[in-house]
């Protein structure tokens, strides 16, 4: 069974319910945070008898109409994948027949993005979240950007899955409390120290420092360490000392 909800260019309508508006808002945040052109999210529930899918799309209505008119769902390679078997798809790696290449050429011509990335996030039991983002990056810069984007998308997939599951953002209630060591590492980042400098200051390894910062980012609900520092400062978790 297919359910499709469209937020053209990331705008919700006044008829959307609270959950739909929250998802639209989250998609807009993701677009801004990672510099994507378009973001779409789908949720698949593979129960014992059938698969139910809900799709939230931000493409323009003109593209969606064009897609439906040309029966592109029959050739779209993303439609043919069992998302229970993969965790990440670089659209450049997708096999393309002549029809599939035509779909991709149309996609690019319509300004929807030159490169795409899809990640699969296991929400619970048989429920999977599939988050796709398109970008306009020069081809030579893609390999270096991809891993960073993958990390950020994984974070946002976790966030938007909670919105879908519960209908509201839950990042205010942390499952795990931030620890003293994580606070220490955040403080030194706020003071402008590098990972190596923090490692020397705290007498711990460099990867230990980055591990603590990774954990702090997750608990504070932020995609980057600078955002984590900002959140920690705002929440009073860390305070910067004034110069004498």
């Amino acid at each position: 069974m297919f359910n499709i909800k469209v937020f053209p260019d990331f705008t919700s309508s006044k008829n959307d319910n609270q959950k739909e508006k929250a998802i639209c808002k989250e998609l807009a945040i993701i677009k801004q945070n990672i510099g994507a052109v378009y973001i779409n999210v789908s949720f698949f529930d593979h129960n014992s008898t059938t698969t139910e899918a809900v799709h939230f799309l931000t493409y323009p209505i003109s593209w969606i109409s064009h897609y439906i008119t040309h029966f592109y769902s029959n050739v779209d390679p993303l439609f043919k994948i069992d998302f229970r078997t993969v965790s990440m798809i670089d659209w450049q790696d997708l096999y393309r027949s002549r029809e599939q290449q035509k779909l991709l050429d149309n996609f690019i011509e319509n300004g929807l993005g030159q490169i795409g990335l899809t990640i699969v996030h296991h929400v619970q039991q048989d429920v999977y979240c599939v988050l796709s983002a398109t970008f306009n990056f020069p081809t030579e810069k893609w390999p270096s950007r991809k891993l960073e984007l993958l990390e950020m998308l994984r974070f946002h997939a976790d966030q938007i899955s909670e919105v879908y599951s519960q209908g509201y953002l839950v990042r205010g209630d942390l499952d795990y409390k931030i620890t003293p060591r994580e606070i220490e590492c955040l403080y030194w980042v706020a003071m402008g120290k590098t990972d190596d400098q923090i490692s020397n200051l705290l007498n711990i390894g460099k990867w230990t420092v980055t591990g603590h910062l990774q954990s702090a980012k997750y608990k504070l609900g932020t995609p980057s360490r600078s955002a984590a520092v900002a959140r920690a400062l705002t929440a009073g978790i860390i305070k910067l000392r004034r110069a004498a």
Partner: protein
Amino acid sequence: MIVYVTPANRHKFRQQLNQYYPLRKRVFCDKLGWVEAKPDGKEVDRFDSLFNVYILCIDDESGTVAGGVRMMPSTGPTLLHTVWADMLPDNNDFRSPNIWEATRFCVDEEISSRKSNLLNRTTLMLSMAVADFGNANGISHVIAVCEHYFFNMAGAYGPQAEILSTKVDENGLEISCGIWSTSSIQSLLTWSRALTGNVEPAIVREVA
């Protein structure tokens, strides 16, 4: 050959898992005495029913499991945060979807006795597969609790783990908790790949 057993494809690898669990029993129950043995001949704990990924090394000649490791996300219950919680400064340290725990790393010494280098080769392949899995899935760090000598051995062919803590257990074994960055492992595994002849990363992204 390396296989990745996820919750989605676990049904396809039942035979391999039924070789991996008895191997764990031989290593962790019979040899190390870390876990109490059960009469069914397998070592299966409560974490096996949670969301995890098994990385198994299959011997090319016999088709049997030569070794394996279980990967678990630190956002859920882990051995480190439950059984070995005293090895961390705080039980809430290292909790992130990008930090996974590697547990139940074991190699079949019975198979390796027939092949002089299989023990080391299996260990090497599994270690590379952990790094590949991490890099393919945006995992930034891998943590593990194991005998201290394993960290020294791993350092011989890859980057040294950073040791978070060390203790001596009731059997007199020196146990350490260590952390690796997957990107640092990846960069130093080039010669290891040449050694095993695996020039491509073990993990293959599956597409339609």
